[in-house]
């Protein structure tokens, strides 16, 4: 069995910004298997909130069997998680999804907002040369961790740090070069990254988001439009939870 649902112990939690939290949980079976770009489903303790909260893997530590999850408070579930203290338990299932393919090429890792966390584990797993581009609204987070893994370029919407503007403004301003792009962030950003990669003829992998119910590919809730008729659904749909969340940019319509 490659997946499992388990009670994971909260090891520590810190607050990174006003609404972003940094949670380490002990989940050896998940950590054992986990790859960059995969995610876990977390479940609330509340009997009225049943569906999974998918959270990307920000870092894994196989030695201690632990996982790092960095998330923004967006509603009930993430609000509940933010109150967890060491010793508490959280129900977690994973690792889910396909993860990023590791290519032996000069890589550019682009994260926007709460799409930044998975770039940390990806940067750790990629061996070659890498450029990391992180776009924030205003307050920075994870920059130290990212700097430890490669050259980091920052963009902020309010110009308080790095390039004023979005990640593409920074890439153009700094003329950052790469042979493969990996990106995670809001859909408008992914659309722009896809266009940029196409324009430059760079291989490009995007991590998508969609509302989920099962998280394992069974319910067909989380589909995205695919260019080709896909082999599972035989319609132009791919499942973000199972066939993704990472897709080759040309495969999907955003």
């Amino acid at each position, binding site marked *: 069995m490659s997946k499992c649902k388990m009670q994971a112990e909260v090891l520590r939690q810190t607050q990174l910004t006003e609404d972003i939290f940094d949670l380490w949980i002990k989940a050896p079976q998940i950590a054992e298997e986990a790859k960059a770009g995969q995610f876990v489903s977390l479940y609330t303790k509340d009997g009225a909130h049943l569906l999974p909260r998918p959270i990307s893997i920000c870092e894994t530590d196989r030695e201690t069997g632990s996982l790092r999850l960095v998330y923004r408070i967006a509603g009930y579930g993430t609000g509940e998680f933010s109150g967890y203290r060491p010793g508490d338990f959280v129900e977690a299932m994973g690792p889910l999804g396909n993860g990023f393919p590791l290519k032996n090429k000069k890589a550019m890792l682009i994260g926007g907002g709460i799409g930044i966390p998975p770039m940390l584990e990806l940067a750790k797993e990629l061996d070659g040369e890498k450029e990391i581009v992180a776009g924030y609204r205003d307050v920075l987070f994870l920059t130290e961790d990212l700097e430890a893994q490669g050259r980091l370029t920052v963009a902020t919407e309010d110009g308080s740090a790095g390039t004023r503007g979005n990640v593409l403004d920074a890439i153009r301003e700094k003329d950052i070069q790469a042979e493969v792009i990996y990106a995670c962030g809001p859909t408008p950003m992914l659309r722009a990254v896809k266009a940029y990669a196409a324009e430059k003829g760079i291989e490009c992998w995007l991590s998508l988001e*969609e509302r989920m119910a*099962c998280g394992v590919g069974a319910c067909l809730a*989380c589909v*995205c439009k695919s260019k080709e008729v896909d082999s599972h659904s035989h*319609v*132009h749909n791919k499942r973000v939870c199972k066939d993704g969340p990472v897709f080759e940019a040309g495969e999907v319509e955003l």
Partner: protein
Amino acid sequence: MRKINTEVNLAGVKLKNPVMVASGTFGSGEEYSEFVDLNRLGAVVTKGVANVPWPGNPTPRVAETCGGMLNAIGLQNPGIDVFVQRDIPFLQQFDTVKIVNVCGRTEEDYLEVVERLGDQPVDLLEINISCPNVKEGGIAFGQDPKAVEAITKAVKAKAKQPVIMKLSPNVTDITVMAKAAEAGGADVLSMINTLTGMKIDVNRRTFALANKTGGLSGPAVKPVAVRMVYQAARAVKIPIIGMGGIATAEDALEFILAGASAVSVGTANFYNPCATVEIIEGIEEYMQKNEIPRLTDLVGAVR
């Protein structure tokens, strides 16, 4: 430990226990086979399959509600050809009863699928005349007793396997629909499909689902489902598969005591992939504790 017998018989098909999965919540079994030993299940019910591939609805297709969820998948499916090539052989590996859920837009659609399945290793057919998420067909058949009877008759005329008619809860009187299906020759009834619901995102001032409405499922609907199973069980002689919010053995027993011969687990799979096996074990424990030799002794025991 006394010897207990959890077997149930649905139209001549023997299930080792009364616990199956609800259509559309378990794919064709493959995805959950990493969590659950499919050999443990009384039956596997597949996602609805149509004569041709259906793309389904735009996303978002699901939304969480208090104690439940809304879905508007729109019966996305790869069509009967792929299903016969891929999903049936997968299920063939397991020692469990195989039930194929059939959907369609017109009577002809249903009949085409039913005929294609005639020579397949499938034990029962479940005809979904109650999906609230597709414009034509689906629920329209399930809300008019004459249409229920007619489609049941037409399917029965072609079907090689016993036929389960899956009823919609979005009706004034479930007993009228149950009797219509029985009159049309249905071998088994299953209920409930989802209750039509809606959620609005007040901050974005838009519908939570792209399809506007969706089907409500999960523990929130259980009291409505138990009531309908109870009413239908007193109105017809054919067996009933009960579902709607079952997540624990207690939930399953509620349906059985109300009159269901078997039960399906749907939404609960999403938050507890092992729910089915826990329910099977819980029912066995209950029977041991209360010294009930046969599961069938519990069916409809509260009246």
